[in-house]
């Protein structure tokens, strides 16, 4: 319920539940309530450090492996956790000896096309569902909500046959089109368009603007915040895709990073150091987006969770 309100206020950057920075309140108020004693503080600190270690540990260890030189063993039990002589050569090898660059380009293209489709379709449909009355609109919203609950795995085989039948196997469009409609994105855009005051649309109509003109020049610029949310969420979804590209692509030259790195790791000559370096590189774009655009990420995720 809260998230719906959050999305309705025009720039949805407002009050994402957990995005807020620490903002330490004046200590005195807390003291008066006696909420936090030194013991509780210490326990909380220890638990938080453990939790952070569990999250960061595997990543740091992976980094350690990626920094190990060719001379240092990755195997052995018990072996070393920290590289004795750190080197960046594995990151270079990931781009030279291994087609990681190619995979990143594929993923970039898929993400760009995917986000474009997602934005185009979500804004058009969200607008119609919010502001254009047509027969069967309520029914269509119901259908959209129902299909949101349908897991893709259920229609995986048939989608493969349909996509193949359209000649889209091993193409960029074949990867993007079946996943282009995001119900969550449509609902986020619908909420945003619902929040625009009627007077603005009336003024546009009085000035003689048609439906398309009103949409493009008046409505779209008013929902920039939600567009950013949808774009960020679309990018993260696209970068996370694994099953569908794995199924629809057969030429390794077309693989996105997730499938490509997996393919390399399974190869007989796979060097754990190089694969670790590649895996870390794959994590950089979504983590960068996440840390730079936390508010958009959280708003979108909250909306998505609510849908489920």
């Amino acid at each position, binding site marked *: 319920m809260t998230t719906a309100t959050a999305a309705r206020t025009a720039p949805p950057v407002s009050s994402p539940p957990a995005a807020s920075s620490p903002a330490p*309140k004046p200590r005195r108020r*807390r003291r008066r309530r006696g909420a936090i004693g030194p013991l509780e503080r210490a326990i909380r600190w220890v638990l938080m450090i453990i939790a952070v270690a569990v*999250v960061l540990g595997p990543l740091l260890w992976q980094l350690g492996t990626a920094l190990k030189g060719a001379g240092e063993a990755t195997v052995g*039990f018990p072996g070393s956790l920290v590289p004795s002589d750190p080197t960046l050569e594995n990151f270079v090898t990931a781009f030279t000896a291994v087609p990681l660059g190619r995979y990143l380009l594929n993923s970039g293209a898929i993400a760009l096309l995917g986000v474009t489709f997602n934005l185009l379709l979500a804004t058009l449909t969200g607008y119609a569902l919010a502001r254009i009355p047509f027969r069967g609109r309520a029914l269509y919203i119901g259908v959209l909500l129902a299909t949101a609950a349908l897991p893709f795995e259920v229609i995986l085989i*048939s989608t493969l046959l349909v996509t193949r039948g359209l000649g889209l196997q091993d193409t960029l469009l074949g990867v993007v089109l079946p996943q282009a409609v995001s119900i969550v994105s449509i609902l986020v855009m619908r909420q945003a368009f619902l929040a625009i005051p009627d007077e603005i649309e009336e003024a546009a109509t009085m000035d003689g603007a048609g439906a398309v003109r009103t949409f493009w020049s008046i409505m779209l610029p008013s929902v920039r915040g939600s567009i950013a949310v949808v774009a960020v969420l679309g990018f993260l979804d696209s970068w996370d895709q694994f*099953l569908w590209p794995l199924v629809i692509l057969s030429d390794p030259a077309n693989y996105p990073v997730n499938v490509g790195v997996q393919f390399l790791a399974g190869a007989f000559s796979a060097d754990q150091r190089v694969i670790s370096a590649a895996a870390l590189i*794959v*994590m950089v774009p979504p983590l960068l987006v996440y840390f730079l655009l936390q508010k958009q990420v959280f708003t979108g995720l909250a909306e998505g969770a609510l849908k489920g």
Partner: protein
Amino acid sequence: MTATAGTVRRSAGRPSRRTPLRRHRWWVPVLFIGPVLAIQLTFLFLPLGNTFVLAFTNASTVGGGVFTGLANFATIFASAAFWDATAHTGLYIVLATPLLVGISLGLAILINTKMRGAGIVRPILFSPLVMPMAVVALMFQYVLSSDGLVNQILSGLHVISEPIPFLTSSQLALVSSVIVTVWKGCGLYTLILLAALQNVSRELDEAAELDGASWLRRTVSVTIPQIRGTIGLVAGLAAIAALRAFTEPYVLTGGGPGTSSTTIVLYLFTKGVSPGTQAGYASAISLVLFVFVLLFASISWAVTRKGRLR
């Protein structure tokens, strides 16, 4: 001109937001809804309908197929491999759901504080939710290997003398997959639960504190009951995510050793995509999966609804 004036007068009379503001030409809704409808018809409704048709045929993914009635379902329910995969998925749900809900709830309560440092900890704890599952699973393939991080630490602490075979033991392979699901999934569920905690009113908590209730007592008896609905929602999401588990076992163990970590979706994949090409049989499995998903969705819906009504 008159039409415009009429529209304006009408909307002025009924200022409700859902009132039609203006009458559009017939093609305007088509223009806005058409693209999504076209894609959904092609890539959602057509495949969905096709799944129902294929499930009753012996079609292959390379073509052909004749109507075989309920033969696929008879084969499925007589197949040891299917029940094996179903049992693994069942175990997956039973292990992953309480772990995801319990750990996420604990973390949410832990970081629901204005203590200095919590603001730095939060984004780090949520960060796995943006990491691609395939790459996370690949990372854990190394972390859980016989000379991986976990075994190194345990041996360093002298807890074990022999490495634990997380990925090569048929008893542990599925558990390892669950570990990855939980590591990656807790970020999202902690986020959802934290949002719910922050909406809980402080008054009840303060009243209980004045009555001398301990922190633990207040958390268990005052705070948690207030977010019961959200906990139900999270449990439903977690169960359905576990039901759909594919990437983790596929990347970590390929469903092995043997078929000891083959889930339903992985079984479906091996029958219909690779190495198998039995589109008809795989479609029948899809329908069984669909029934399982509907079952869990309705349970989750019922539980959440009940929680909200209280």
